[in-house]
């Protein structure tokens, strides 16, 4: 009896904690998030209240949506660096059309370039097998060029943000940000797609073992094209939301500052950049962590330079630590 009872004792506590964490990757992330909030409360007592939380969530949502694009593409071993350009394009085109057309029409038209970029990415990566990083960087360069040319042609018409986007981006209802109305269904849809549908399973499968997937009859290029189109459209939606939040419709670098944080949020959230592992729930926590971190660094009154340094260091540290935890099985 004593022998049986002592067997579990042989595994040290540290190892058991690690094993638990690798089985439940969300737990260490949530702990990190709580620690950051506590640290914030200690540094600036009283800052953590309902308004602050609503504000943090509001700013985390566009980041989380863009990070969703990264999560889905990373699951297949890819990455989408054109999301910020697509978001900026959609927002700018929508704002420039909003004064002349009905908002719904403007939004529909503004999503066309997003669709095109998504298709181009998908064809380049899925059929020609260009490295996703390079392909999406290239299309984002082309997109920026088109946007600059377009801006010169519409400079006279002016820009306008439809009222409901401002309401959606900045408004609060009973203390809850209205943006949640958009985000909760989107997040639910992404999580549902990844976990419960054939398409989601295909994404994991392609990222995990492309050759095996191909041999089991999956047409790689179709999956990839569909994926990058979805990613681009999602980025466009994030652009609409972000322009309602930031209220800078004529900016041509609107969503640019969100690009690298969106990659970081997905990586911090535990999605492997090599594909096949990760999920959207972790990414959402990752986006919240990065938003709280930004607040923290702002409150410490660090210059922009040190903030970036710390940001990079933390992304590297968290990724390395996460890799250790997951590998140590």
């Amino acid at each position, binding site marked *: 009896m004593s022998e049986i009872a002592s067997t579990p004792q042989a595994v040290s506590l540290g190892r058991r904690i690690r094993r638990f964490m690798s089985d439940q990757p969300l737990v260490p992330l949530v702990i990190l998030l709580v620690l950051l909030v506590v640290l914030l409360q200690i540094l600036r007592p009283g800052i953590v209240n309902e308004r602050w939380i609503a504000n943090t969530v509001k700013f985390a949502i566009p980041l989380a949506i863009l990070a969703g694009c990264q999560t889905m593409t990373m699951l297949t071993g890819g990455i989408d660096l054109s999301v910020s350009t697509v978001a900026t394009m959609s927002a700018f085109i929508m704002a420039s059309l909003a004064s002349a057309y009905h908002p719904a029409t403007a939004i529909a038209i503004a999503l066309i370039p997003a669709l095109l970029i998504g298709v181009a990415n998908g064809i380049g990566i899925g059929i020609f*097998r260009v490295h996703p990083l390079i392909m999406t*960087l290239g*299309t984002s*360069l082309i997109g920026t060029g088109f946007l600059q040319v377009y801006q010169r042609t519409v400079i006279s018409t002016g820009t306008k943000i439809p009222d409901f986007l401002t309401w959606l981006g900045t408004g609060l209802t009973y203390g809850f940000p209205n943006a949640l109305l958009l985000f909760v269904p989107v997040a639910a849809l992404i999580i549902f797609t990844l976990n419960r549908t054939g398409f989601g399973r295909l994404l994991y499968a392609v990222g995990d073992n492309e050759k095996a997937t191909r041999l089991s009859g999956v047409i790689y290029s179709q999956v990839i094209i569909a994926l990058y189109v979805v990613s681009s459209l999602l980025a466009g939606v994030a652009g609409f939301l972000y322009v309602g939040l930031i209220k800078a419709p004529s900016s041509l670098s609107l969503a640019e500052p969100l690009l*690298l944080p969106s990659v970081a949020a997905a990586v911090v959230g535990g999605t492997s950049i*090599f594909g096949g592992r990760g999920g959207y729930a972790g990414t959402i926590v990752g986006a919240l962590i990065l938003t709280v971190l930004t607040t923290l660094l702002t409150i410490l009154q660090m*210059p922009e330079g040190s*903030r970036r340094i*710390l940001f990079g260091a933390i992304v*590297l540290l968290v990724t390395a630590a996460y890799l250790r935890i997951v590998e140590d099985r």
Partner: protein
Amino acid sequence: MTSVIRRQGWVSGLVVLLALLFVVTKLIQPGYGAGDFGSLARAVLPYAFAVAAQTIVVIAGGIDLSVAAMMALTSVTAASMMNGASEEFAALVVVFVLLMGFVLGACNGLLIVVTRVPDIVVTLATLFVLQGAALLVLEAPGGAAAEWLKALIVGTVPIPGVPEAITAWIPKALVLLIVCLGIVWIPLKRSRLGLSIYAIGSSELAAFRSGVPVASTKIIAYALGGLFAAMGGLSLTMSTGIGAPIPGPYLLASVAAVVLGGVTLGGGRGGLVGPIVAVFILRLVRTDLTLLAVDPNVTTIIEGVIMVVVVMLGAFIAMRGRSS
């Protein structure tokens, strides 16, 4: 053996393309002469160093996203240290900045080896860090460069006994580029280390089993990449006379030129000559578009399309090569 022929074929194809482009340029602008060639060489300089940095890392099987940020940091460091300093002190600054690039590059490699995080993520993180550091050194474009450094890339090299009509076509910038790259690349290519770099890029496991010190070779490859990036940063300071903390468009350009130059992403294949010729081609295309009075924004679009098409073509050829 066939791969050697194919590679040389690729490079000579690029040279022919470059020559054709020069003919086109001459047709567009009949007055295109030695002076214009000199300014082309000056414009190419930072790009060429960025490409060299990327090439060596890609051959070793990695990718360095921090190239442009590294150039920005080394450029602002050089510019702010030379600000108000004497001409002689500038020589020290050059040595210091080159050393800094080497060490920072080695840090990249060390982080990749030690943390075992994919190199894309590591260099993405160091991109943030280096960018931040550049902003700490100089918040806005500023600083200064020593006169002799600036003079190093302006004008031509007079060779005694050679008529000026010929020396006019040898801009100092081009000579500087060839000397700087050659000093590092030629001994490297002939050494055991150079072979090791190709080996780990080709197959890390096979290299390890053949007794190649994979970790230290990788670190050195990244360090040499950092050294080239520092040269690029210095050349930026030389040509503008100041340092700017915001990285230029060198990352995408360097990757595109590497691919166009016949170096396969994934490592182990290619040389330095191809990418350098490729970067001249890409810059000359831009010059031609400017000469044709194309809207600069449209030029950006065309450049982007060329790069995307080039990488698509490169990937397509690599795919065909793999399947055959």
